[in-house]
């Protein structure tokens, strides 16, 4: 344990990237390509980041499986899926560049599944008009992360693994570095840097039922917030409709949307294919209205419309919840997902090998013969750190962010497949943004020892506390609050209650106590991440209380449906001078004309006269 600030181990790099998932590694590769001395700091071992859990694919309008597809249709789908609350420019950049980013991965060794012409095969997914997801079976995230890792290790990038970043350091208003600790030894470390990129993902661990791993504790969002950056759209938390519901110990683990993309259907306890009853008006024209039409679509008939199981995630999640509420749920409180009745066993094993494996090993269910039981699970945060769409820089000079930890790109609801492409596009753009920023930087910002000392004192507090709170139990309490009052459907009363409870919890968390030394001490790790989770949870609850409508992933029982005036506003959270959390509405301004024209156009005009 360090006792003296002056003796803390110090590294110096041009840029430090916090998080080694897809966004972080892509940003690191780009920073390195710009000639910068680049380091990655990550909580886990390199190659273990949560990107490996992304299963279905990466969305890009390659047009391999349907020549009618192009970036404009992808952009339009993304805006419609996001209920038109997306950051217009980010959604445009994403749609414009995702195809190149996917092709680039192939240059670096990625092996995506092929179509019959030998090109990258593309799979249908919820909310995407055409088969658009480049994929590798149902382990696309692993394929992408491993490709970035194996390419990245030869680019001269320094990797500091099993190291947790705790505090951003600033020289007046500019970023000057990061303070953190090695998880194995518990020793502190300072990374001096001209720029920092946050790519730490979401904060699913605030909820009890989540597809996220322990790493998802919102550290990056908290660090950015605490150093003066805004958080935007925090009320939009995506519940993936299909998580495992049994056994209890795996409740929440993801069942890929690819199951439905490959033809899987949802049934209630009465055997009713209920999604036909939940088609929103906005999508009625583009959705099949009978099992027969869905079947024809599955067989590849281009005039047939898409099955309702492939509606956007918010719609499907709420439909399952309602079926369960009405007493038509499966035995363990979910819905049935059936692929066995739609596809033969060989195809299921080939296209969905890890789902087959996961259900056989963890639930003793053979998905080629039996139905799965599935229910909603907290999966993704649309909201996050507010950034400039072009450069990915936050309002703090030198602080950048990319990937899930940012907000804006996905609006009120993210389409499946748009996350893997998001992290490639915006990781790349963040790297370029850093290059421009450092290129224009005059003198190097300095690390100030009083900031380091304060950060160190905050970090050791739980180890020096007597007779305090158990961090594991406080974490359970947090998850209880969020699952009860800040979940998939919300009310004003419930959110107010959650905010009061979170304030109480914050008080208790100040007195958290852990025993043992700082060497690889999971209770201490838990105590430190608890602080970030509580900040993120409070931001979600406050934003959700402010937004008095139901839009995308944010559903208020006391405010039904989308309200036009709310479509013009984003909710933004920032830290006030007195340390409290402030929340405000920000006018979105009018969309760029050329983008509004695409987003609101009909499909025929976007398909460029291509007919199939």
């Amino acid at each position, binding site marked *: 344990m360090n006792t003296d600030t002056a003796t803390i181990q110090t590294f110096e790099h041009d840029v430090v990237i916090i998080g080694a998932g897809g966004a972080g590694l892509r940003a690191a590769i780009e920073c390195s390509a710009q000639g910068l001395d680049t380091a990655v700091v990550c909580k886990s071992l390199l190659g273990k980041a949560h990107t490996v859990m992304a299963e279905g694919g990466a969305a890009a309008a390659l047009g391999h499986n349907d020549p009618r597809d192009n970036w404009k249709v992808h952009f339009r789908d993304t805006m419609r899926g996001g209920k038109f609350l997306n950051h217009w420019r980010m959604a445009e950049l994403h749609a414009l560049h995702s195809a190149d980013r996917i092709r680039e991965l192939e240059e670096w060794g990625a092996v995506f599944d092929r179509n019959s012409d030998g090109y990258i095969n593309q799979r249908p997914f919820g909310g995407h008009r055409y088969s658009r997801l480049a994929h590798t079976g149902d382990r696309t995230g*692993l394929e992408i992360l491993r490709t970035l890792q194996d390419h990245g290790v030869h680019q001269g990038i320094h990797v500091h693994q099993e190291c947790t970043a705790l505090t951003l350091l600033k020289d007046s208003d500019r970023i000057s570095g990061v303070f953190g600790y090695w998880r*194995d030894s518990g020793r502190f470390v300072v990374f001096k840097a001209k720029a920092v990129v946050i790519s730490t993902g979401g904060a699913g661990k605030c909820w009890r039922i989540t597809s996220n*791993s322990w790493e998802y504790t919102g550290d990056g969002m908290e660090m950015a917030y605490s150093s003066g950056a805004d958080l935007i759209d925090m009320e939009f938390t995506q519940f993936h409709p299909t998580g495992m519901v049994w056994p209890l110990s795996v409740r929440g683990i993801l069942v890929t949307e690819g199951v439905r993309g490959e033809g899987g259907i949802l049934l209630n306890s009465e055997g009713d294919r209920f999604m036909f009853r939940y088609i929103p008006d906005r999508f009625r024209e583009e959705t099949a209205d009978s099992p027969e039409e869905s079947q024809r679509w599955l067989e590849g008939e281009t005039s047939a419309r898409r099955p309702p199981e492939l509606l956007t995630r918010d719609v499907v999640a709420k439909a399952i919840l309602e079926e369960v509420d009405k007493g038509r749920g499966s035995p363990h409180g979910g819905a049935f997902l059936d692929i066995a009745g739609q596809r033969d066993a060989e195809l299921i094993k080939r296209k969905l*090998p890890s789902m087959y494996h996961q259900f056989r090993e963890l639930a003793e269910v053979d998905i080629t013969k039996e139905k799965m039981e599935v229910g909603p699970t907290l999966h993704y945060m649309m909201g996050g750190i507010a950034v400039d769409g072009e450069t990915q820089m936050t309002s703090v000079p030198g602080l950048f962010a990319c990937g899930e930890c940012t907000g804006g790109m996905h609006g009120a609801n993210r389409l499946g497949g748009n996350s893997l492409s998001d992290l490639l596009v915006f990781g790349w753009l963040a790297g370029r943004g850093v290059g421009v920023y450092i290129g224009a930087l005059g003198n190097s910002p300095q690390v100030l020892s009083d900031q380091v000392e304060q950060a160190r004192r905050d970090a050791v507090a739980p180890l020096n506390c007597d007779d305090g709170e158990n961090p594991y139990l406080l974490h359970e309490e947090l998850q209880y609050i969020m699952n009860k009052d800040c979940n998939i459907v919300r009310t004003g009363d419930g959110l107010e209650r959650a905010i009061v409870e979170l304030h109480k919890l914050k008080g208790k968390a100040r007195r958290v106590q852990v025993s043992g030394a700082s060497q690889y001490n999971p209770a201490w790790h838990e105590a430190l991440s608890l602080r970030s989770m509580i900040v993120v949870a409070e931001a979600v609850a406050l934003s959700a209380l402010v937004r008095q409508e139901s839009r995308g992933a944010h559903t208020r029982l006391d405010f039904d449906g989308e309200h036009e005036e709310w479509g013009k506003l984003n909710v933004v959270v920032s830290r006030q001078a007195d340390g409290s959390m402030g929340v405000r509405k920000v006018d979105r301004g009018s969309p760029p004309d050329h983008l509004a024209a695409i987003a609101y156009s009909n499909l025929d005009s976007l398909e460029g006269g291509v007919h199939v």
Partner: protein
Amino acid sequence: MSEHIFRIWRGDSSGGDFVDYKTDVDDGMVVLDVLHRIQAKQAGDMAVRWNCKAGKCGSCGMEINGIPKLACMTRMNNYSQRDVITVQPLMTFPVIKDLVCDVSWNYEQNLKISPFKPSPPDSDGRHRMMQEDVDRIQEFRKCIECYLCQDVCHVIRNQGRKDRFVGPRFLIRAASLVLHPLDVEDRIPAVRDELGSGFCNITRCCTDVCPENIGITDNAIIPLKEHVTDRYYDPVAWILRKVTGRIRSGVE
């Protein structure tokens, strides 16, 4: 619910011992769940490395009753209540603390494999590969880098050849490049020399413990060894090389 006894190795690089924990186990639990329960209720400072809890990241490899396994994919109903369940870290690598060991040696081995070197794309900027030509390497690319194969491999574990042999994980990675339809790098000399393919004597222990059921030995290592044999020990090829002065491509 039932009650089990877990015998867990506790200690660090300076030494340690097994400690018994009596704990409740619920229906459907895996070993990792039980370790977390012990951590939350009895041993807050017990170190366990884990991440996805779904068999996809390969972080929670450990030796359970002496067999290298992923704790997140090992169901408790494999064991009877009478069994004491012994859990220890992967013994081939230096322990850091409790169930966590230092696997950095593996990252060093990966650097010995030179980067993917693709042939130029077609004139339309795209690469064409047929699915049947990538099926085999997709099998190798399923690897989640849990290092259970590295742990069990006796060349590394018992013979201590960490200096000469990269282990099964990195031979399948090499095979995924050698058999890649687009890769143009000649990798056979490195497979023999830097990666040490000759050290493997095909006991298939690695294949047995692979949680992804990759045919490590039969599908990757044996074909690599055949490439090496063809290149260096085939007399006809040797004479042909002498006469023509040409080196055959490693990709056939």
